[in-house]
């Protein structure tokens, strides 16, 4: 019993880092553009299918596929920004909601048309096997996925703090008018932010495909997960984001281990609601 608990916590912590990576994408878009991309989970689903296609066609390992999917999703993000997001920025909130929910439905339908309803998975990853620590097993594929996620999260944190474009993004997030008045081109900054948010789902998608399958409605779960982690973390704290991802990851794996796997979305939703009740700005959110 204790062993099982510890085991599921270990697995949950590793999954949590990937969730944090997924959430980072929706978080920077929300923080900078003040737009909630309801299709974010479907970007993950879409990335997973792309990884599947590339992995199958080129006989690549899933973790290599982001080499191609990152640029593809980056460009996809740019296009989506200029085609639909840009036009809704000065509109009412419901309009933004409608276009991103619409995008979600569009992507899900496209996935159904292209890949049919059946789930797809890649061959076992080259990073197979596991590390045994006493009675506990750490799957190497998950560990590698967690480490790569951490590297990307750290990279984005560095980018936001030190680079020209990252500074512009943070400035635009704090005060758009003022940022423009000191030379920040807001449209380009917004487009770049959206494209980066989108490209991050490509990384997550490739990592997830190294041990999971994908299906056209899988986006719901990732969307849900990312709102929940974002609600927990609040805006602006990268360590808070990672811890929140881990909390959700652990809650999920513990539920799968001890209850019904099918109830995991309920648990995540439960956390989401509890956070909204008691900590509407998240556990780590800035003022």
């Amino acid at each position: 019993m204790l062993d099982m608990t510890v085991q599921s916590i270990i697995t949950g912590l590793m999954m949590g880092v990937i969730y944090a990576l997924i959430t980072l994408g929706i978080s920077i878009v929300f923080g900078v553009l003040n737009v909630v991309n309801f299709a974010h989970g479907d970007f993950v689903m879409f990335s997973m299918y792309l990884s599947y296609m590339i992995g199958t066609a080129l006989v690549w390992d899933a973790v290599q596929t982001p080499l191609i999917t990152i640029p593809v999703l980056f460009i996809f993000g740019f296009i989506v920004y200029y085609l639909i997001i840009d036009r809704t920025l000065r509109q009412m909130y419901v309009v933004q909601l409608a276009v991103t929910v619409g995008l979600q439905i569009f992507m899900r339908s496209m996935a159904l048309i292209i890949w049919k309803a059946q789930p797809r998975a890649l061959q076992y990853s080259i990073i197979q096997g596991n590390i045994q620590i006493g009675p506990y097993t750490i799957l190497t594929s998950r560990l590698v996925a967690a480490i790569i996620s951490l590297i990307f999260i750290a990279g984005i944190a560095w980018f936001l703090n030190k680079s020209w474009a990252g500074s512009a993004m943070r400035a635009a997030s704090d005060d758009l008018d003022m940022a423009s008045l000191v030379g920040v081109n807001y449209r380009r900054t917004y487009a770049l932010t959206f494209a980066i948010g989108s490209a991050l789902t490509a990384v997550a998608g490739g990592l997830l495909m190294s041990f999971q399958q994908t299906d056209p409605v899988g986006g719901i779960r990732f969307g849900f997960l990312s709102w929940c982690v974002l609600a927990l973390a609040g805006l602006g704290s990268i360590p808070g984001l990672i811890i929140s991802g881990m909390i959700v990851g652990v809650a999920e794996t513990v539920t799968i281990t001890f209850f019904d796997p099918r109830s995991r979305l309920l648990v995540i939703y439960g956390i989401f609601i509890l956070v909204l009740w008691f900590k509407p700005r998240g556990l780590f959110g800035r003022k």
Partner: protein
Amino acid sequence: MNHPPKLQVNNLTVNFGNLMAVNNVSLEVYPGEIAGLIGPNGAGKTTTFNAITGLIIPSSGKVFFNGHDITGMLPHKICRLGMSRTFQVIKAFAHMTVEETVRVGAYNRCNEKNVYKKVDQIIKLCDLADLRDKLCSDLGLAILRRVELARALATEPEMLLLDETGAGLNQTELLSFMDLLRKINMEYSITLLVVEHVMQMVMGVCSRIVVLDSGEVIATGNPESISTNPKVIEAYLGKRVPQCY
């Protein structure tokens, strides 16, 4: 003046519904001068600034900067041409440090290689070295005024529009701020247009003053002629006595 104006505003009008916030305002600012824009509360000073810097599109009229028509141009493009500003209300980047804030402005002209040199220079000029790693949300008003000036200066402007930068400062802070303004004007030859309620500041630093009342220009001239102009006195007495220390 024999130079062409740095900033020329022709018949600028801004309506908010039925309200004429700015009504047919024309003014010039010449290279190298410190000009003042004053007027009672609600006279339209901030709105004039907003229309000049591209934050709002005027209902009619034209704005020329260095002879270029910049009417309705996006703010970042105007900034690129060499004009930036500060605000009456503090508009700090709350979640950024002083250094990061200044860096945002510095990228207007610098790349990653030389940006820190610029940042260091501006931070030194504005006497912010001890505070460079402090978050803006942790700083007080007087310091934020200097941070905002630093951020605008970092864009390497030819002209700056300063909106009530003296508001809320005590006597000592005000004097050091005035010194800083004179310094950036003299040493960096930045043309200034300042909106100010603090008369000591206006009279102390401006060589020419434009007075607005209810959206219209009621007087233009040097500080002495303005302070004795009956129209100006009436405009102020009718509303609010200028703040004198």
